[in-house]
C-alpha cells in the first residue's frame, strides 16, 4: 500500500518516472482497485451535484462495470494497434499502467468541495478542472503506450487516437446509410399520400 501511495504521488508530480516504475513493478490487482475506487468517488460526487437520489446504487454499479469494460477494451484495442505498428509489450502491463492513470479522476473531487463553498463560478470551476484532468489523462495514456511498447511519441499518439478516428469514420458512413434509408422511406410515403380518398362516414 505504501508503495502504491508513493507511485500515485509520483504520477502527479513526476509522471514519466512514475509510469516507468508502474510498468515495471505495478500490480494489476492494485490497478483494478484504483479504477473501481476512482470511478466510485467521481460518480458519487457527480450524482450528488446532479441531484440523483433514487437508483443511485444501480447507477453506480453500472458506472463501475462500464468503466472496467472501457478500461479493458481500450487496452485491448491499443495493444492490437501497437503490435501492428511494431510495438513490443504486454497487454497486462498496459492495463496496469492505464489503470493507475484512472487515479487522476479523483483530483476533481476537491474542486467540487470548493464549488460547494463558493457557489458563484462553481460550475465553471468544475468544468475547467474536469477538462484539464481529461487532457492530462490523455497525455499520460500516450506516455503509457510509449513506455509499455517502447515506441516513439508520434506512434503512441497515433495508437491512442486510432480508435477515435475509426469511430468517427464509422459514424459518418452510418449517417450516409441512414440518410439513404430515410430518402427511400420518404419516397414510399409521398407515393402513399398522393392516392387520397375522401373520408366516408
Amino acid at each position: 500500500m505504501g508503495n502504491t501511495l508513493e507511485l500515485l504521488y509520483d504520477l502527479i508530480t513526476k509522471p514519466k518516472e512514475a509510469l516507468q516504475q508502474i510498468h515495471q513493478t505495478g500490480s494489476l490487482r492494485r490497478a483494478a482497485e484504483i479504477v473501481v475506487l476512482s470511478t466510485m468517488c467521481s460518480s458519487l460526487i457527480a450524482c450528488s451535484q446532479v441531484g440523483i437520489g433514487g437508483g443511485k446504487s444501480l447507477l453506480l454499479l453500472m458506472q463501475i462495470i462500464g468503466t472496467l469494460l472501457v478500461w479493458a477494451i481500450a487496452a485491448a484495442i491499443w495493444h492490437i494497434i501497437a503490435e501492428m505498428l511494431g510495438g513490443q509489450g504486454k497487454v497486462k502491463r498496459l492495463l496496469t499502467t492505464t489503470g493507475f492513470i484512472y487515479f487522476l479522476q479523483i483530483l476533481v473531487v476537491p474542486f467540487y468541495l470548493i464549488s460547494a463553498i463558493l457557489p458563484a463560478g462553481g460550475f465553471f470551476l468544475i468544468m475547467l478542472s474536469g477538462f484539464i484532468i481529461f487532457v492530462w489523462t490523455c497525455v499520460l495514456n500516450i506516455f503509457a503506450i510509449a513506455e509499455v511498447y517502447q515506441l516513439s511519441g508520434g506512434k503512441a499518439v497515433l495508437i491512442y487516437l486510432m480508435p477515435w478516428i475509426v469511430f468517427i469514420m464509422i459514424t459518418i458512413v452510418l449517417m450516409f446509410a441512414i440518410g439513404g434509408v430515410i430518402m427511400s422511406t420518404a419516397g414510399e410515403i409521398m407515393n402513399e399520400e398522393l392516392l387520397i380518398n375522401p373520408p366516408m362516414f
Partner: protein
Amino acid sequence: MMRKKVIMALFLLIVVATVAILSFGTNSKKAGKSATANTQDKLAVIYVEGVITGGRGTTNMLSETGGTDALIKQLHQAAEDPSIKAIVLRINSPGGSSTATQEVGEEMKKIRDKGKPIVTSMGDMAASGGYWLAACSDKIYANPTTLTGSIGVYMPYSNWEELYKKIGIHQEKIKSGEHKDILSSDRPMTEKERVILQTIVNEIYEGFVAVVAEGRHLDVAKVRQIADGRIYTGNQAKELGLVDELGNLYDAIDGTAKMVGIEGKPKLKEYGNNNPLKALLSASDKAELLKNMLLQMQTLPAEQSHSYVPMVVPENGR
C-alpha cells in the same frame, strides 16, 4: 518517501470525506427541499396550442402536438394533485373539432364542480373552439390584441367533380342508402343533404351558444346576437362581456394566485411534454415517425385536412 505517503494518505482522506459530505449531506438537504416543494401550494399551467383535434395527437422528434386525449389527461393530473390550487389554461388556438372541444369543456366543468378553479389566459388567438374552452373557465384574461370570438360552426365541403372530369376520372358508388355518401366530393350536394347538414350545424351551434351563455352569465338572445361567427379583439370582447380582464399570462397567473389565496410569487407546475428523446423512442415504426415529421411540416388549414367533422374554426384560422 514517508512524506509522499503521508501527503497521499491525507489527500485520500480529504477525498473520501468530501465525497461522504457532499454525497450524503446533499441528499438529505434535497429530500427536505423536495418534500417542502411537493407540499407547497402551486398553480398548474396547461397549454392548448394549435388546432384542437381529438385523439392522441402526433409525436415527432422535435415536439409532441397533443390531441385532446393528452390535454384531458393533463387536466386530470392537475385536478388530482392536492398541491395544485388552481389551473391556468393558456389558450393559443384557432379552434378545431367541435366534439374534441366539447369533450375538454365537459372535463373542465367537472373539475370546477369539484372546487378547483380554472382561469383562461388567451394568447395570440383563442377563437371558436378556443373560445368554447375559455367560456368553460371561471375567469378569462385576454391581451387587447388577442383575436377571439368566432362563435359559430361550419362543416367544410369541396366539390371536385369538374376536376375529375378534366383529368378523366369517373367515380361510381354502390351504396346501401340514399345519404350514405353524403359530403362526397365527386358530385354536387343535394338539397336534402344540405338540410341534413344544416340541421347538424345548427344543433352544434346551439350547443356552443348555450356554453357561452352559461359560462359568461349572458342572456342566450344576447349571445346569439354576437355569435354570428365574427372575430373580436380582446378589447372588443371585454366590452361585450366575452372576456373579464385584459392582461397577459403573468397577469392571469397573479390574478389566479390572489383568487386562491397564494401570497407572493406563486410556484408553477407546467404540463406537457417536449422531450425529443422520449418522442424518438416512442415512435417504433420508421415510416410512422417520418410520416409524422412530414405532416408536421405541412401547414394546411383545417378545411383541407380531408376531414368532414364539424369545425369550430374561423374560415381563415390556422
